[in-house]
């Protein structure tokens, strides 16, 4: 049983005092067998945090505990952690077996023990039939699995993965994503996975830690961070295509952006905004593309949330279609049913489901709930 506690962790690089903290006040309890994903744009501090857990970076302030034991000054090799990086290289002259066994041989493991561990990793990763092959005879996905195998043979109770799929092409990335998720179900190893790809975070995580500028923005399950983002950053970062944002003015149950968008806020939401003192204030309205509808039933249901918009670009994706549209000068994207596909230049009616919309404070960008 392994639990990881990051207790108000800070990282400041020496000679960079002016630049502030690379990571500040990172506070998280990771449960046994949990799959945690750190997600955020490059430079947000997610890899630095991972490296602090591994012991490859010093912790400037705060405590790191693994199973209750303080780890700040424990050497990386004694933390019992296996790492998988973004870029990996296999030994070109060695077989798959030897590639996975080499690290153990260098550590003077017993031969029979090595064989057993490699055999197990081979079985888990579906590489049993390839153990005698050399890397050149493997596909990209198989090579990636060998790289994972090198971590598995170490039998560590914690896996740290730093963008392990970033170097793969889009198709392989999708299939390896599923492979890693399956692997976690089999091994139940506590895993921390770092990525800048929100889709990877959404599909793989038990819980997601969204980071920006060295600070944790939100921690929650994929559905929590998607459905109830704490601020505009999380709302915009999670989801593809991204949430539409409109700078609006709210007054007496009505919102307007001064560029052609005028909508009626449903009673419940208006009540909430009024009670929080936002009547007459500037806000940001956020609405996900799938919450903008072109179907007739929706248009009839919410007559006060309907806009007449012009389709600029339309993309048919099979089951759905994306309509990049605008109301006067306000641009937005809607994901609608493929049956509601429209050609560029068409002027159509679209309904904004404001019950599902998000409102953010105009100054702090915090979500208003």
């Amino acid at each position, binding site marked *: 049983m392994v639990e990881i506690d990051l207790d108000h962790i800070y990282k400041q690089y020496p000679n960079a005092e002016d*630049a502030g903290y690379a990571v500040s006040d990172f506070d998280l309890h990771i449960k046994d067998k949990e799959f945690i994903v750190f997600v955020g*744009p*490059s*430079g947000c501090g997610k890899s630095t945090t991972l490296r602090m857990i*591994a*012991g*490859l970076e010093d912790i400037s302030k705060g405590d790191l505990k693994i199973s209750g034991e303080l780890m700040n000054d424990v*050497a*990386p*090799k*004694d933390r019992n952690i*296996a*790492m*998988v*990086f*973004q*870029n*990996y*290289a296999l*030994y*070109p*002259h*060695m077989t798959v077996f030897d590639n996975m066994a*080499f*690290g153990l041989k*260098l*550590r003077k493991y017993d031969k029979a023990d090595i064989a057993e561990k490699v055999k197990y990793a081979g079985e888990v990763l579906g590489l049993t039939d390839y153990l005698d092959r050399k890397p050149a005879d493997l596909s990209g996905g198989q090579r990636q699995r060998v*790289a994972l195998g*090198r*971590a598995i043979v170490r039998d560590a109770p914690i896996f740290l993965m730093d963008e392990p799929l970033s170097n793969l092409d889009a198709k392989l990335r999708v299939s390896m994503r599923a492979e890693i998720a399956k692997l976690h179900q089999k091994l139940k190893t506590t895993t921390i996975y770092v990525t*800048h790809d929100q889709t990877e975070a959404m599909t793989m995580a038990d819980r997601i830690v969204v980071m920006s500028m060295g600070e944790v923005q939100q921690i929650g399950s994929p559905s929590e961070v998607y459905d109830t983002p704490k601020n505009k950053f999380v709302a915009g970062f999670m989801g593809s295509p991204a949430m539409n944002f409109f700078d609006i003015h709210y007054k007496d149950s009505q919102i307007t952006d001064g560029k052609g968008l005028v909508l009626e806020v449903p009673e419940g939401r208006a009540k909430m905004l009024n009670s929080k003192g936002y009547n007459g204030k500037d806000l940001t309205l956020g609405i996900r593309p799938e919450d903008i509808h072109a179907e007739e039933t929706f248009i009839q249901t919410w007559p006060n949330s309907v806009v007449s918009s012009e389709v600029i670009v339309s993309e048919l994706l099979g089951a759905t279609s994306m309509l990049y549209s605008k109301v006067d000068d306000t641009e937005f994207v809607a994901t609608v049913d493929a049956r509601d596909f429209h050609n560029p230049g068409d002027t159509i009616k679209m309904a904004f489901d404001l019950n599902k919309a998000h409102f953010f404070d105009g100054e702090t960008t915090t979500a208003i709930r």
Partner: protein
Amino acid sequence: MITVNQLKAIYPTLKVNQTPEHDEADLALMVDDQWLSIPKATLSTSEQALLLSLACTVDNEHRPWYAFLWGQKKQVPTKRETSVRVLQFQVTFTDSSGQKAAWLEALQAYFVKPIDAFWLDEATGILIETQSDDSFETNFTGILQSLDAVFYTKTVFYIGHFWPVSVELPALFQMERQLFKQVQRSSVNTLAPSLFQSLIQQDRLYTPLIEALKTSLPTDSETLQMINTFFKYHGKLSQAAKALFIHRNTLVYRIDKFYKLTGFDLRNNYDLTLCHLIMN
């Protein structure tokens, strides 16, 4: 201590070599300051282990490539007409459990034709590699990250140029060493950017000019990240914007803003390269 002649009597297939180069099928060892090789096929595993323990640790001075590259011997250490590249490495071990030998063994295993590899001191060393068809395919970042993942090390590579093995090589190598000491910008460093940056830093005549430019340029991390990313993507707006997680138009806006502020137009290759080098 066993002598070469005694060994030769026991293992008639033993060869005495001029250089440490040997086939993979041979066991290589040094006895009496001589490089020896014995076909592994004629040896049992325990014999191999015994022979390796009998062989002495090789001092760098006894390595023909060390003596050649450090100018102690003029003799070119290989008879083959070939080009070699020297990979310099600097390794920070996070523990003191003496993994140096294993680390070096693991590094060598990544190369098709390593001639020799050795430590120069506690933290730095070199690997000499012969040029082959796939030399330019070597994934140095992958090797570095894999080694760091296994050994919990923090490694910096400086990848030299392939030079023909000739009497000029030691001087060229020493210059590369000098560059490595001065310029370390990322974990994997190559000749061209290091040399370019060094040219800017070294020409003292223009130092005040460069310093003045440096002071006049913005120092915030957002601008620096924008310039580095734009440079990395060869000035391609869409790709750089994607990597920066911003809209292409936002990047255009920031580039225009930078131009108005500094007079450098990042869409111009000379301006972009100069700003990139000065700000880093």
